């Protein structure tokens, strides 16, 4: 019984009007969640945590750089799952959500590259190094841009979305390959110092702001995803009556 | 009756050979001239010579008023919406100082509603059907104040109501003191003022 209600719910979620209501109700809470967590995280990162004995205060960039990196990769995974659903079950909402995730993922990747490059300047003496992690992150940015460009190139948004979803899946396979192929270079980038599972070499007192900021970025992604998806849905259905009634009524 | 265009023994050479016997045409205000001739006899080339797109290989032409040419393809950017295309058209020809019509140019939205394209205002010109593109070309004429209209196959891909609309617009233009030169195949213009004819004959073989 539960399975059937779940299945019906899953498919009902796909109808535009239902999704529209959902993507109108949730975002305010998600934006609020983001605001709270980010405020706490930034406060702790800048005011509470003592400076690092080696890096001084420049390590505080970690609280923006690392969550952005994690979010960039997490967004791609979520996008790939959405793309899979969109391709297999042809659910339009999944297509929209996948397409709308690309700009957010690209923004996170850009943020990661920018903050990493700024952090690298005092620490390694150079803005950029052809290092394994940096290069694969840069390639990830190009994959995101490619997906956005491919989707934008099609006038027929359903076909464009399907084509871009295939590119997403291709990218999903390609990214670990790139990561390991560039791994063999002498890597300047520090090893994985933050391991949730293994023993983390970071001082425990530095941990809380990172947790807050990571959660904040998750809220950010969810809120931005649903808000953008709602806009894209309205844009695609703008010639339909339900959109016209909605948009003109609530002036 | 003010003369708008005076073309004397106009000819054009392609690969060194005259395409049609040099033709003379004088267009006065309030006149509509139908350029007639077999397929491929050079009607379009003649119109493009009048418009100034092609340099005449023979004869001379004197334009005493602004000209507007609508070819087979309505000249619009496919990526811009109908409204944007018309606004550009108005802006681009607004700078023209050669003799203007007395009637002020109407706004883009006004022009679109006159040719029945108002609902497609926001749609990209590339997504229009052939008939709709032709109507957009006509709307382009309304938006500029060029006294002389040079229309190549204005009735092509238009249904009967569209063709009647073209006739109405031409009538209105003639009443405002404009002049029209058009080429057409089957559908002859039905106007209040009878249209004159300007035959285009194939070039005599001897002429090189």
């Amino acid at each position, binding site marked *: 019984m539960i399975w059937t209600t779940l299945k019906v719910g899953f498919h009902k979620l796909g109808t535009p009007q239902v999704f529209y209501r959902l993507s109108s109700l949730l975002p305010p809470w998600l934006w609020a969640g983001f605001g709270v967590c*980010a405020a706490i995280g930034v406060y702790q990162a800048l005011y509470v945590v003592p400076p690092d004995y080696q890096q*001084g*205060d420049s390590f505080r*960039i970690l609280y923006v750089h690392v969550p*952005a990196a994690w979010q960039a990769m997490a967004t791609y995974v979520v996008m790939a799952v959405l793309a899979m659903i969109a391709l297999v079950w042809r659910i339009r909402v999944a297509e929209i959500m996948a397409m709308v995730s690309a700009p957010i993922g690209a923004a996170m990747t850009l943020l990661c590259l*920018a903050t990493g490059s700024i*952090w690298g300047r005092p620490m390694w003496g150079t803005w950029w190094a052809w290092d394994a992690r940096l290069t694969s992150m840069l390639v990830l940015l190009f994959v995101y841009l490619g997906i956005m460009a491919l989707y934008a190139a099609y006038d027929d948004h359903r076909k464009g979305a399907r084509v871009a979803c295939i590119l997403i899946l291709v990218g999903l396979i390609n990214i670990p390959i790139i990561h390991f192929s560039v791994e063999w270079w002498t890597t300047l980038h520090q090893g994985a110092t933050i391991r949730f599972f293994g023993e983390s070499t970071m001082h425990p007192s530095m941990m809380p702001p990172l947790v807050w900021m990571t959660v904040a970025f998750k809220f950010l992604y969810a809120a931005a995803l649903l808000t*953008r998806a709602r*806009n894209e849905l309205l844009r695609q259905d703008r010639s339909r009556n339900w959109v016209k009634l909605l948009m003109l009524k609530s002036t | 009756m003010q003369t708008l265009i005076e073309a004397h023994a106009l000819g054009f050479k392609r690969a060194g050979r005259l395409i049609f016997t040099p033709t003379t045409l004088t267009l006065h205000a309030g006149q509509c001239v139908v350029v007639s001739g077999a397929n491929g006899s050079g009607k379009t080339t003649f119109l493009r010579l009048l418009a100034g797109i092609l340099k005449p290989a023979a004869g001379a032409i004197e334009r005493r008023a602004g000209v507007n040419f609508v070819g087979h393809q309505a000249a619009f950017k496919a990526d811009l919406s109908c409204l944007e295309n018309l606004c550009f058209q108005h802006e681009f020809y607004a700078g023209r100082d050669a003799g203007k019509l007395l009637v002020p140019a109407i706004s883009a939205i006004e022009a679109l509603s006159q040719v029945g394209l108002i609902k497609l205002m926001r749609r990209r010109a590339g997504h229009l059907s052939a008939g709709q593109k032709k109507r957009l070309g006509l709307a382009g004429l309304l938006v500029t104040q060029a006294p002389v209209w040079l229309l190549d196959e204005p009735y092509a891909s238009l249904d009967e109501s569209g063709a009647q609309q073209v006739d109405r617009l031409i009538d209105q233009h003639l009443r405002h003191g404009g002049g029209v030169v058009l080429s057409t195949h089957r559908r002859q213009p039905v106007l209040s003022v009878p249209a004159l004819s300007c035959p285009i004959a194939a070039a005599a073989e001897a002429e090189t």
Partner: protein
Amino acid sequence: MIPDFNYAPFVWSSYAIAAAIIGWQVVQPWLAHRALRRELREDHLAEQLEQANDA
């Protein structure tokens, strides 16, 4: 109130870039929504103009 960090320019520029990029994620949907609403309203007016012409 503003703590003085060593490497301050690097830290503050990083946070500024973060604020800018995250800010854009907040602002962009709002702008897009407003633009779409304006466009739909214009189309609505155009249709009314159309009915007025036909009537």
